[in-house]
């Protein structure tokens, strides 16, 4: 086989492999999943449709999923390449995005950590009033 042919075949192979490796899906897919799950977790705190036991049980299941999702987001290199504001904010506000891992650092439950990060205390909750925004 001629050298030029070999080079062409090698180039073709290289391009096809690279294209295969760089096959693009939505780069923010994992982050969007995490945000959705986080929203569900926070909603779990405020929803009135659950009793304390149900809230705790459901909360634990969500935490388990959050652990995996937080790790997936932190290990997903496509997120950084997306160059999106959503990704930028997620990493800039580690305390609020990665609730379980950040909570573990401060030895708090994810929910307590979230409340603490936003400076929401028992006192401020008592002082608050419900009404139309």
């Amino acid at each position, binding site marked *: 086989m001629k050298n030029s042919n070999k080079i062409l075949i090698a180039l073709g192979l290289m391009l096809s492999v690279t294209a295969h490796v760089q096959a693009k899906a939505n780069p923010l897919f994992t982050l969007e999943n995490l945000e959705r799950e986080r929203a569900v977790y926070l909603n779990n705190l405020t929803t009135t449709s659950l009793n304390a036991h149900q809230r705790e049980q459901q909360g634990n299941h969500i935490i388990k999923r959050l*652990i*995996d999702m937080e790790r997936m987001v932190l290990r997903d290199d496509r997120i*950084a390449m997306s160059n999106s504001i959503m990704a930028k904010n997620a990493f800039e506000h580690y305390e609020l995005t990665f609730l379980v891992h950040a909570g573990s650092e401060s030895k708090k439950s994810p929910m307590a950590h979230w409340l603490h990060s936003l400076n929401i205390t028992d006192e401020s909750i008592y002082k608050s009033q419900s009404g139309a925004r």
Partner: protein
Amino acid sequence: MITYCKKNNVKKASIHKSTVLATGLTTLLILVTSSIALANTNIVGNASSDWKPVASDKLIKLPANIIEKRIQKDFQASAMAMRMVALDADMQEKVSVIKSILQTMPDLEGEAAQNQRFELVQYKSEYLDLLQESHTLHQSALEKKQNLYSNVLDKMRLQTGKISSNESYQIQQAQIAARKRMEKVIVEVDQSLMHLGVDKSSPYTDEYSKNLNQIEKLKMAINRHKTNESPKVNGIDISSEEYLRQLLMGVSTEQSLLDQEALMLSYMAKLVALDAQALEYEMAYGDEENTAVLTEASKPSNVTTLFYQE
């Protein structure tokens, strides 16, 4: 000289030849002297032996050690390199002729020796012309390489600067920092699952840890792959930028040595000029006994007796 020649026809012919040789030598002397003047100047090679490398974006994307090889290959295929190779062969030929002349010279005498000396000076002059052209081409090639390496280095730095100021790069750095932070508490988080009453780890955690080991092995294989090898100097891995700086230093070293060689070339040209001048003087004024030796008759004291009678 002409009056002197009239007495002997053979000598006349010989002197005629000498005149021709002397004229040749004068021309040679002028040529050699001019080559001394040119030895220290940078003459750009003619268009037919040129090399025009460009620091293209494609070149910059290559690994540094491949950049060097690519440039070298491009240079070797250029008209300039081909001319240098041809010059080298010509010089080799001239050197062997000069050597053989030098070997036969001690056995020759008289006119034959003089002719041989003339030939020697001529060959030396021709050799110096070739050497000068080769030297000029070397210098030009080095200048081009230096410019090329500098351009590649500048573009590489510009690209690195662009990348580090890039938004994606900033996010990537933030993600790396966040990942490091997460990895510090990963064990604690896994243990906290027990407290939550979830004793079974998730499929993601299981599969991830299984794959992680294999991924590390694959990563090592990629790092070890020769195409992905970082450039090395004295067996030590260095960055592409550092490698290019080393190449630039190599070019400077070669350039300073070439400057030294230019000095040698000018001294050699000076010596050939002196040889040619000596040969010209010898032919013009001859090396015979002084013909103007005064005879007895030319001394008044010896002839005074002829003018009176004692």
